[in-house]
């Protein structure tokens, strides 16, 4: 009377073809293949591309969009969209600058306040979306315009607040070099290892399978090796830029939240089947509110980093009226990285990988020095191709069935 379920692990594991390898293990990081292809291409076109100076540059340039996309991902996961993130980015950075420059508030206060305001704005749109039932596309589009207006009102007659010598510029200018950089890496890996080991220990205590080599040694070694390469490259230029470290921390925390916590799980549940989530007792509107708040807060953080990079805020902060390139690139980064616009699908690397694809194309073309017209054409085609490579491999190696 036992119920029969097809055993999933065949007795002897057959040797796997390269195609299968690609379609299984590397599937985890889909767009990586496209990114690597782009890297090869640009390296062949410009001998500067692979210099540590340029790679470091490229990383820094991708941070703002990467961070924005990271935050937006939370909203996309619950099958909503936030078109106001660029406006939040702009308005909170202007507000922060106003506090600092006009009212002499310390950056240590102004920065967290700006981030909180960003989160508060996000949670307001979520309330409107969940309470009234207006699609988030409309709510956040309208809110974005309203915030653009507010941003213009907050700016002084000179239309710009300079941020030099306010301390904010240090965010973009600080580099962690030498031994400190390695220390940061070691700390990061220790944190990661701690999580991995505690997971495995739990599994073993619970009597579950957890092969030590495969689930402890290998992931940690891989992470350490990858981290070491990145740090080595960065150090040979000028150290780990603080903004890159911020991104790394966000990725770590974000990954932990999405993969290991209850809240992360609920994001996926709500995005896949909102009604089922509701029936399971998940407070759907709270989860959505949190997702929008995170997107808003992170957008504010990105705004501050952006302001620090450009050494000031103005009409352009946040991409200008309508969100401009910043908005489009942030959404595009998430989608290129593999986050679904239809909810419930996407992993934490997505945002950064997508932003790196966009950043690499821009940086590579700058190095090649093509004309503007050609540049636009090539940018467009490369974005499509980077994502297509992955899909074409998927096709060639057999469909993903689910």
């Amino acid at each position: 009377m036992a119920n029969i379920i097809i055993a999933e692990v065949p007795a002897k594991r057959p040797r796997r073809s390269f195609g299968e390898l690609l379609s299984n293990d590397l599937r985890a990081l889909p767009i990586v293949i496209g990114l690597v292809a782009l890297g090869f291409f640009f390296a062949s076109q410009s001998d500067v591309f692979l210099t540590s100076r340029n790679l470091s540059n490229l990383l820094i340039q991708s941070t703002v969009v990467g961070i924005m996309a990271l935050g937006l991902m939370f909203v996309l996961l619950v099958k909503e969209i936030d078109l106001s993130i660029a406006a939040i980015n702009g308005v909170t950075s202007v507000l922060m600058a106003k506090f600092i420059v006009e009212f002499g508030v310390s950056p240590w206060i102004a920065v967290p306040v700006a981030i909180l305001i960003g989160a508060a704005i996000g949670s307001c749109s979520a309330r409107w979306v969940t309470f009234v039932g207006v699609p988030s596309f409309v709510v956040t589009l309208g809110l974005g315009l309203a915030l653009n207006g507010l941003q213009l009102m907050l700016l002084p007659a000179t239309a710009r607040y300079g941020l030099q010598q306010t301390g904010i510029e240090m965010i973009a200018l600080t580099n962690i070099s030498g031994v400190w950089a390695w220390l940061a890496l070691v700390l990061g890996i220790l944190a990661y290892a701690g999580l991995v080991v505690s997971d495995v220990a739990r599994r073993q205590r619970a009597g579950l399978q957890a092969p030590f080599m495969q689930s402890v040694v290998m992931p940690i070694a891989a992470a350490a090796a990858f981290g070491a390469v990145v740090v080595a490259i960065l150090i040979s230029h000028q150290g780990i830029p603080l903004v890159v470290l911020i991104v790394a921390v966000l990725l770590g925390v974000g990954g932990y939240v999405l993969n290991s916590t209850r809240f992360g799980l609920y994001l996926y549940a709500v995005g896949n089947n909102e009604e089922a989530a509701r029936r399971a007792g998940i407070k759907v509107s709270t989860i959505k509110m949190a997702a929008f708040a995170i997107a808003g807060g992170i957008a504010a953080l990105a705004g501050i980093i952006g302001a620090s990079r450009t050494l000031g805020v103005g009409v352009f902060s946040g991409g200008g009226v309508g969100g401009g390139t910043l908005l489009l690139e942030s959404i595009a980064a998430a989608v290129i990285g593999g986050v679904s616009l239809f909810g419930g699908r996407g992993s934490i690397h997505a945002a950064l990988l997508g932003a790196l694809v966009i950043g690499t194309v821009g940086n590579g073309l700058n190095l090649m020095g093509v004309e503007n017209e050609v540049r636009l054409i090539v940018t467009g085609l490369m974005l499509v191709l980077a994502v297509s490579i992955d899909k074409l491999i998927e096709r060639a190696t057999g469909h993903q069935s689910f």
Partner: protein
Amino acid sequence: QDAGKVFFLLPNTTTIRFESRDAPFFVEAMKTAAPNAQVVVQNAQGDPQQQQRQIEDAISQGAKLILLTSADANLIAGGLAAAQAANIPVVLYDHDAVGGKAEAHIVFDSLAVGQAQGKRAAEMINKIEKSPVKVARIKGNQGEYGTGQYEKGQDEFLKPLIASGKVQVVCEQYTQNWDPTVAQSFAEDCLTKNGGDVDVFLGMNDGTTGGSVAALISQGFKPGDKVVTGGQDATVEALRYVAQGWQDNSVLKDLKVEATEAAKVVASILDGKGVPKEIVNGKVNNGFMDVPAVLLPVENITIDNLGEVVSKGVWTWKEICQGVEDTEVCKANM
């Protein structure tokens, strides 16, 4: 008596001067030039279609005159035709407007701006001993009329230097929507590409030069290491950079003068006296007609004549020196 509504249609908010300076100056000037006229200011937010709608809606409201700064010189002919059909006079302010009827054009000669930028750049380049001097050109928004004129003006001085081998242009790019962030990334990549060996960053306005300055700061350079030139608009931020030695120049357009001249022309047309002949000093062909033009002079501001901005009442020393009080110019003038 009521002289009726005058619409001042602005192009966008990205070139913030229109919203934050030109419009208030014009409203102010109109209070004396035509106290009975009611001035309505509207901004097309960079969308030429929106600007055409604003023209149409101005006509619906019985506009007496439209003072127009086109959002895109190339897509405004339809709006001009609508105004002409409704018999409403249009006066052009600053930006060109191609392909339709206009009464007058009050403008800082765009070509002259480009020439001033080019001339100054050539001077700076000639001062550098090295040859070739490596120049990065960070240009304005592609396809915009102004960008074309600035480029033409700069080329007059740059082309000979390139031909003679004195100048090597190592990077050249338009900057979408004059966005300083885009300019910054481009400048950073240009530095990277050349291993830091770039001598001159030639921009087209203070936003694009500001991007270059931010790039230099982010890559650890010091003021004076590189020449950043080709600014215009004399924004207060740019002037601070000039005071600090980060930036070499900014072409000053005295917006108060422009707004006042515009008010004179507008008032005269409202009075039924037409365009005042005495202040017309040229013409601009816009592909439809020769528009009588009031061409205003521009002046290039560098560290040596920074005080000009103050004496013309554009900014005060206090405003310029805020945050950069310890620079020499500021110490000398505060």
